[in-house]
């Protein structure tokens, strides 16, 4: 079977998920939802088929499973938003998906030869840093939970780190492609080969930027995500585990210093360590959120309580039991509804998505493509780890969106651009050799 037909067939799981999810939620909440709300599920399915047709024409050789996997992830998100916030937000979310696919198509068409991006790498890097700092601009930034995570423009709230992460990866992939040789070629000091300082400079700057992001915008999650991408690309480019170890050490020292000196980061650590201590549970910025996420997961058990069945709002009120159920804490809601099986299903889907990204990197024939695919895949993997790990208390909780699943426009748009880039790399890598020459 041809790749695009595989892709079409692979959309079946997503279709089943979205149909059963919408049907179940509608039945459970029939008193609150109108039947017209079911069409948002339909819109989504139509969108998937349209995307398949588009990829058929523009990216005939691209990996056939990346898009269906994204569709499954997006289903989880759409059903959960429908289930948590009802028809209104499901409509908004469905609209974001339409815009996301449009942006996806635009990216594919505009950057058909994505290697042109390398020409603009410093511009992209500067743009990314500006994006990251935007939430700190007075009157523009939105302050929540001790961090500046978003900016507010008339009509929309926008999360800059979601786009910045792509820019940073593009810059790193391009920069490392150029400097991988020199980074491993420096003088030996005390038996350790130290890279020349002038080549190391930008990396030190990046480390500083990640730390600065922590201090200035207080966004641990995004800085962790970006820093992990840096280390991953650095490692793949140089094959030097020592760089990674030094990098981790630097980050650990920086984080420890910040954790002990910045109140809201320290609070996050305390919430992580002692979520069930009443003094911490009831404190402002306390562990109420993460503790209740765990209660919700425990209630889900092995098989969950069923789509739309777990309790999300305090009865008799409109207060969410777990704050931010459709964004930061969506993983705990999924686990409460679908249990360990549903949660592992979601994680396996991410795993498969990331593995297809890595596969594209392996097949790619040039360093930039390899580093780009590795960076983009790693960024998604780390983002999942940061938020799911935060919700499940592997690490302190920091708010980053669960890619494709959390409610929110900027996250969806940015991730569709990311998928477009991955498919571009994949298409080029899997294209028969002769065509590469002519193309």
């Amino acid at each position, binding site marked *: 079977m041809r790749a695009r037909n595989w892709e079409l067939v692979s959309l079946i799981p997503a279709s089943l998920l979205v149909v059963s999810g919408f049907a179940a939620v509608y*039945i459970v909440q*029939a008193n609150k939802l109108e039947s017209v709300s079911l069409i948002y599920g339909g819109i989504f399915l139509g969108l998937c088929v349209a995307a398949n047709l588009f990829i058929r024409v523009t990216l005939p050789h691209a990996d056939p499973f990346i898009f269906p996997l994204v569709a499954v992830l997006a289903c989880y998100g759409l059903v959960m938003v429908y289930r948590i916030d009802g028809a209104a937000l499901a409509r908004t979310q469905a609209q974001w998906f339409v815009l996301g696919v449009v942006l996806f198509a635009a990216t594919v068409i505009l950057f058909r030869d994505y290697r042109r991006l390398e020409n603009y790498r410093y511009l992209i890097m500067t743009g990314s840093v500006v994006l990251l700092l935007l939430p700190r601009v007075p009157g523009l930034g939105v302050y929540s939970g001790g961090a500046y995570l978003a900016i507010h423009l008339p009509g929309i709230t926008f999360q800059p780190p979601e786009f910045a992460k792509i820019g940073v990866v593009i810059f790193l992939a391009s920069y490392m492609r150029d400097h991988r040789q020199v980074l491993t070629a420096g003088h030996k000091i005390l038996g350790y080969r130290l890279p020349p300082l002038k080549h190391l400079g930008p990396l030190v700057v990046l480390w500083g930027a990640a730390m600065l992001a922590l201090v200035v915008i207080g966004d641990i999650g995004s800085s962790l995500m970006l820093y992990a991408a840096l280390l991953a690309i650095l490692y*793949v480019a140089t094959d030097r585990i020592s760089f990674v170890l030094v990098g981790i050490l630097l980050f650990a020292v920086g984080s420890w210093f910040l954790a002990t000196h910045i109140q809201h980061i320290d609070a996050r650590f305390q919430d992580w360590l002692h979520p069930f201590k009443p003094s911490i549970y009831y404190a402002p910025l306390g562990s109420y959120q993460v503790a209740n996420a765990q*209660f919700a*997961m425990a*209630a889900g*058990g092995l098989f969950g309580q069923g789509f739309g069945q777990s309790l999300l709002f305090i009865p008799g*009120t409109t207060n969410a039991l777990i704050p931010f159920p459709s964004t930061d804490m969506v993983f705990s809601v999924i686990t409460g509804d679908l249990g360990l099986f549903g949660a592992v299903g979601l994680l396996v889907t991410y*795993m498969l998505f990331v593995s297809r990204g890595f596969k594209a990197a392996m097949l790619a024939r040039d360093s930039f493509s390899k580093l780009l695919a590795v960076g983009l895949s790693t960024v998604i993997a780390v983002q999942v780890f940061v938020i799911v790990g935060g919700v499940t*208390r592997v690490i302190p909780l920091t708010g980053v969106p669960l890619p494709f699943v959390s409610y929110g426009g900027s996250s969806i748009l940015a991730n569709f651009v990311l998928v477009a880039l991955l498919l571009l790399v994949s298409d080029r890598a899997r294209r028969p050799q002769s065509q590469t020459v002519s193309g």
Partner: protein
Amino acid sequence: MNRSILRLFSVVVLMFAVLVVWTSRWTVFSASALDHNPLNKLQYYASLEVKRGEILADNGEVLAKSVKNSNGTWSRVYPQGSLFAQAVGYYYPQQNRIAGIEQSRNQALSGVQNTQTSLFGSLNGTTAAGNDVYTTLDPTGQALARKLLAGRVGAVVAIVPQTGAIRVMYSNPTYNPNNLSAPCPPNPEGIGCQFDMATQAGLAPGSTFKLVVTAAALNSGKLTPNSTFAGPSPLIVSGTPLHNDANISYPPGTTLTTALTDSIDTIYAQVGQRVGAPLLQQYMKRFGFYSVPPIDYPAAQMRPSGEFYGGRFVPITNPNMDLGRSSIGQGDLEVTPMQMAMVGAAIANGGTLMQPRFTTKIVNSDGQTVQTVAPKVYHQVMRPAIAKEEEAMMRSVVISGTGTAANVPGLEVVGKTGTASINRCTHGPRINDTCPQGVPIDDAWFVAFSELHPTIAVAVELSDEPNGYGGTYAAPIAAQMLKTLLAEKQ
């Protein structure tokens, strides 16, 4: 480069593995601990959305119900206030507190269903509702018990001997289940208001225990109602003198029937020794001693009866036990009023002890009966003929003995008094079973049923009465209870 890409990929796989492990940790391995964490309000919130089933009396009167608040949640209301507090208990999910039938029938009341029915339930679009629990409790008898106890610390238990149905279980102190945080007015015994005197109190049974000794003596063939004894006062029992009431001595040739009729302690001390500890132990167990009663009631709110020594229950065969004094219901014997009602019920039912119970049936929100609780034999205590013999002896107690205050014309009440010494006096110390400076404080008991209509067995206990003779304090209450409950029955 591909080699390092693969290595990096294995790190990514490891990260996902960690996430899976942690997710399973909370959903499976630590789930139970999280579900029971005091900070976890999920069950409470979920309960607010469920119409919990009603608890009903035998005449259909509502004892506990759920009412809908203006914001759509449900609250628990007890229309009878404190009258049924001990039996019905309370359901207070805000603080994870639950007691009584509310607890023992929680599953039915809350409508806990298995996954499949709940799935289909939600497909039908029906909202969750609990089942109604129909009980054996009798509002008239319950109200009478409250009236007769008149605020004094004590308990009244009435059981249908043939079915084990608990018609009345009232005790003081009590509380209002609609307002659990209300302060508990102090009582002389220093008992908390939610303490259940009927099932949780360990009390010396006094002479009511002679019913158990008599059953053992007759059914084992060791004695007959006409066996004779001498009843000197004092009699040295276990090395210390035992006095009869008013220090009266009874001549040789006194029959066992007379000994029960006049509740002669020095004779029953000898009867107990004649029966022997192993046999008495066996009959105590048949009557239900040494076990938590098999009632559909929370085990935490019940206590076994038996010899209680050094902080635990020991068999009467234990060498530290004073068999003679135990045979008159003193020594280390501690029983509950519920246990003594079971003793009366076993005799009234021809020696067959039925399992006491509160529930008759469970009915779902559609009105369908989902469970019927049938009467069940608990123990075969003695032969019917022996039960009849003992009944005749108990009749003599009411006609001419210590229990004449319970004689109700037309009912032929049979019974046994108990005046349990708690080793205290109104004034001054207690020396040799007497109070030189005041009068003794006793627990007054009466266990009774009607020979003519043995469909109710009642046990009455009143704590800490000065000169608290069972025949004076408890017998009239028992008679009133029998009269009212039997009139209702007919």
